[in-house]
């Protein structure tokens, strides 16, 4: 069963239909603006539901299949509902060498979910990601737009508490 938070994401109650229309207004007819348009919509909807993809296709005059193709190609887009906060753990070599897997295990333990899942309260989604470009302070994670580096398992509970 879906939790209220996830349900909210699914119906997009935080992003009203007319809000999407007003986002798309500035991109109307601009095929090259697909990625910026998806960024803007995801910002208010938290993910890219099919209904929004259809509207984007109409506004930008591209096929829906292309919108879906682009939305599923890039890792920063999601066509599935996600938690309020996205935790992205870098799994590339520099972080791997310095213990990224310990960080992943601790996050899974603290959140009670596996990689790719969302917590029951809809607050966190845990994902793995390729290099975040903060290898000088590896291992690193990003929560939404904020990077955390030089991580060890014992730092995780404190970091998560800022978002709970």
């Amino acid at each position: 069963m879906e939790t209220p938070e996830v349900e909210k994401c699914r119906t997009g109650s935080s992003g009203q239909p007319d809000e999407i229309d007003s986002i798309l207004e500035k991109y109307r007819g601009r095929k090259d603006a697909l990625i910026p348009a998806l960024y803007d919509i995801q910002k208010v909807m938290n993910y890219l539901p099919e209904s929004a993809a259809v509207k984007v296709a109409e506004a930008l005059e591209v096929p829906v299949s292309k919108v879906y193709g682009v939305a599923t190609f890039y890792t920063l887009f999601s066509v599935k509902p996600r938690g309020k906060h996205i935790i992205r753990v870098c799994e590339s070599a520099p972080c791997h060498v310095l213990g990224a897997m310990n960080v992943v295990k601790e996050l899974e333990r603290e959140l009670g979910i596996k990689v790719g899942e969302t917590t029951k309260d809809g607050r966190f989604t845990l994902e793995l990601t390729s290099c975040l470009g903060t290898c000088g302070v590896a291992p690193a994670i990003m929560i939404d737009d904020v990077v955390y580096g030089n991580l060890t398992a014992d730092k995780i509970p404190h970091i998560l508490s800022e978002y709970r």
Partner: protein
Amino acid sequence: MEFYRSHVLVCGGTPCVLEGCKAVRDALISEVRRAGLAGEVKVVETGCLGPCDMGPIVVVYPEGITYARVGVKDVPVIVEEHLLKGRAVDRLVLGTGAKEKGVVSYERPPYFELQQRIVLRNCGMIDPDSIDEYIARDGYRALAKCLTEMTPGEVIDAVKESGLLGRGGAAFPTGVKWSFTARATANQKYVVCNADEGEPGTFKDRLILEGDPHSIIEGMAIAGYAVGADKGFIYIRGEYVLSIERLERAIQKAREYGLLGEDILGSGFDFDIEVRKGAGAYVCGEETALIESMEGDRGEPRLKPPYPGTCGLWGKPTVVNNVETLANVPPIILNGPKWFRGFGTERCPGTKVFTLTGDVNNKGLIEVPMGITLRQVIYEIGGGIPGGRAFKIAQTGGTSGGCLPKELLDVPMDYFSLPEAGSALGSGALLIVDDSHCIVDIARCFMKFFKHESCGKCVPCREGTDRLYEIVDKVAQGNGRLEDLDLALELSRVMQVASLCGLGQAAPLSLMTILQYFGDEFREHIVGKTCPAGTCGF
């Protein structure tokens, strides 16, 4: 212009931000004010200074003393002792300490000693949000020189003569690249800055953009003048939040100063820049995939030729240059190609920005002359391997580069010597791994990356990256077969010659070098069913 007796520079690069540099900066400002020094001491937030795992970094000028790991609680001591009484705070100083006790004169840490800074000339020296500080350090003078004293052809000749090679990894001569676009006839041409830095272990472009955004704007404007383009785009990773903010502000400032826009410096030359965000795809660092992405498509590489130089963004002639390449352009124009050739080697003039990561004492951002050896970088600048462990491998060029054993530590690092040793210089990422790690586990991490990042357009890469991961994973699980290693090598060779773009061509390199130098460790996993490092769980 106001004058101050001391400048306190606080590194504001992303790694230092993570360690709390903003709070340190705020504390410094209020403590300086409290001590009544606000009129004499200026606190400036700068770009990256380099030693990223020792942040927050604070430097006090004119003495040039670098403090590492500065916390808010250290601020009153620095202000009281250093800024008020003129005595350095020994316990925080990065470096060897004072030659004479009580004298504020310090040896520069070896970390900086071997470095030569052309690209990073302003990083950590100026406030990246201040166009005036950039201009005060000769900023936009190269652009002015081009527009007032040089023809576009002369600009291209200067860049050609400098021998500058593309710093994104492919090492194509920049001047030659520009000449293709300059020669093409079209009603519209573009300059694109490739800031889609995704190679694992690389974070130089992020820190160049955060630390000196105007150098990229100036480099792009010069490129635009040289090739006849009036429009530029910076394609940057969506994750680089601070770089994007600083770029946007810098572009706005440059417009206000008349250094972007119409009729720049009254020369009749128009040029403007727009920032485009990527959305998370490693392959978009490949220039034709990047162009596809900018046009609003999946970032899948195009068949070449035609090359972007003649048929790029929206089918128009397009120059695509890496961030570091563009940052080299203004100093080359200003000081001349001969000056540039005074750095580095005959075949590879200039410097290279490297990012040191992994099991090394000093991780961070460095700029050294081309041709420096791996050993010098790891031991003299990087401070060696931590915890008394032994060196095992160095991977040069990021995950798409090769892995070198200790026997090859004296190979010069440039775009020709490293490929001759079986590796690549690539984007300048350096990953150091000590002997506590299992080579199979490391190889699996590399292969997982390419399996995930292959765009799927061409078969050799799409299938090859999948199968290579499968083979290595089987070895790590204790189910490997010796004949699979031969299969992996054969498949690797096919991928190298038959893949459509650099991603698939480079994907097998790390595994090939690992099998060449550490094949025995693979065979121990397969035949002896043991993992010498104790990492693989069987």
